[in-house]
């Protein structure tokens, strides 16, 4: 039954109503009844529907007849490599090569290799700012530009890392707590396995960036990454289904350190350094 004194329906409620998975839910029913009685809300809803219908009306082109063949021709050469290096057995018996070349392991190795390169580059350019003379193949006027380009790549990578870390921290900080949930509550809430995976994948990079920053004397970067690491570790090793109490503890951990703000400030500073380098790199033609 509709309440005639019901307030106008908000835009968010209208959007939820439009996408309601079940129109029989009490909330949807109430909105439906209100829309029948309230001209203003009905007009608002009709306007929303018209916009969404306009979006629907844009056709999606159908790929041409040769799409699948073309796709396969592009894919096939890329598929053959893993099959040669890591053949599988039909019996399902564990084959050591497949373990060795497992994508997760390869990704970790690639990541470590990239970090070592980053550390190498950073070691040469962060601390002293002096361009080494070993670049004999590069004409002298170009050497500083190359150095700046390398530093910019590193700063970009650190900034990207901080962006990702921020997103994980934000997701934890803004996670929904079920109504009635309190520190004593043991009921599981949303699945946090995704956040955990992200935190875990950030951990290795975080360690290596921190070590790089320490070696190059960039204490600002090292300090924030040092504070970030235990929090990432805690997220990665928490249960997938956090209880309200566990979530609250994690949030307090983040808040107590002011970590989000520190990461954001550092990200901004790294980005500015990156941008400061950009014009000269572009001017140098790289």
């Amino acid at each position, binding site marked *: 039954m509709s309440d005639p004194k019901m307030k106008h329906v908000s835009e*968010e409620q209208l959007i939820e109503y439009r996408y309601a998975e079940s129109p029989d839910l009490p909330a949807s029913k109430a909105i439906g009844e209100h829309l029948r009685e309230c001209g203003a809300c009905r007009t608002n809803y009709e*306007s929303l529907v018209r916009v969404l219908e306009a979006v629907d009306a844009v056709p*999606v082109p159908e790929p041409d007849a040769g799409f699948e063949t073309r796709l396969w021709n592009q894919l096939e050469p890329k598929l053959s490599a893993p099959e040669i290096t890591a053949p599988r057995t039909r019996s399902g018996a564990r084959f050591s090569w497949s373990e060795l070349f497992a994508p997760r392991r390869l990704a970790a190795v690639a990541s470590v290799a990239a970090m070592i390169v980053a550390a190498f580059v950073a070691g040469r350019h962060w601390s002293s700012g002096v361009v080494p003379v070993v670049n004999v193949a590069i004409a002298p006027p170009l050497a500083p530009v190359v150095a700046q380009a390398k530093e910019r790549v590193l700063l970009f990578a650190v900034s990207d890392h901080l962006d990702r870390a921020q997103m994980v921290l934000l997701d934890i900080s803004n996670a*929904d707590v079920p109504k009635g949930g309190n520190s004593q509550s043991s009921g599981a809430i949303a699945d946090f396995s995704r956040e955990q995976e992200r935190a875990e994948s950030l951990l290795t990079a975080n360690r290596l960036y921190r070590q790089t920053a320490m070696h190059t004397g960039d204490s600002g970067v090292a300090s924030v990454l040092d504070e970030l690491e235990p929090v990432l570790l805690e997220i990665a090793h928490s249960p997938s289904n956090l209880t309200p109490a566990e979530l609250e503890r994690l949030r307090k951990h983040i808040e107590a350190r002011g970590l989000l703000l520190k990461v954001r400030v550092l990200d901004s500073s790294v980005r500015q350094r990156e941008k400061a380098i950009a014009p000269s790199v572009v001017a140098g033609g790289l």
Partner: protein
Amino acid sequence: MNRMDGGDAARVTQALGGDQDAFRALVERHSRSLFRLAYRMTGNEQDAEEVVQEAMLRAYRRLDKFESRSNFGTWLYRIAVNCSLDLMRKRRSEMEQRERPSTRDEDEDAPATIERVASEMPAPDRLALSVELREQVQQAMSTLSAVERTAFVMRHFDGCSIEEIGKVIGLNTGSTKNSVFRAVQKLRKHLEPYTAPQARPAR
């Protein structure tokens, strides 16, 4: 989303055994639906094709992680969503470096503000809606951030639940809901002048 049938299950097993023809059959069966998804996410055919290719490649490389109890089409769909997100972020980053190196919104993917777009809009009565509206829709879609666009496409076109979307894009329920809301709000703000009954030109 495609549902996995017995054929998919058998082909996954065969592909894991090194049978590339079996994987080719999976590619042929699912690539068009992935293309439609990728087109809606990226807004152009070349990028959509690139996404399908990358998604299939990632799927092949992670085939041993696929659980046979799961739905292969859904698994593939999630991979394609992530590939689309990656490509959209890459494109946006390229565009920012080319055009607007100094501005950066709090949302990492945030595009130009809707206000700027709105101020550049021609008067509604000068538009021939049948063609112009399509262009406006595409323009409006391009104002969404990568996350907003992903959430909207999954919700609006594919009917995914907020929980499903959140799992794929890595956000909690509240943030996912907000992404859908923000997307719809931006679309409304941009498109309402063109969809209002009085905006239709007499032709």
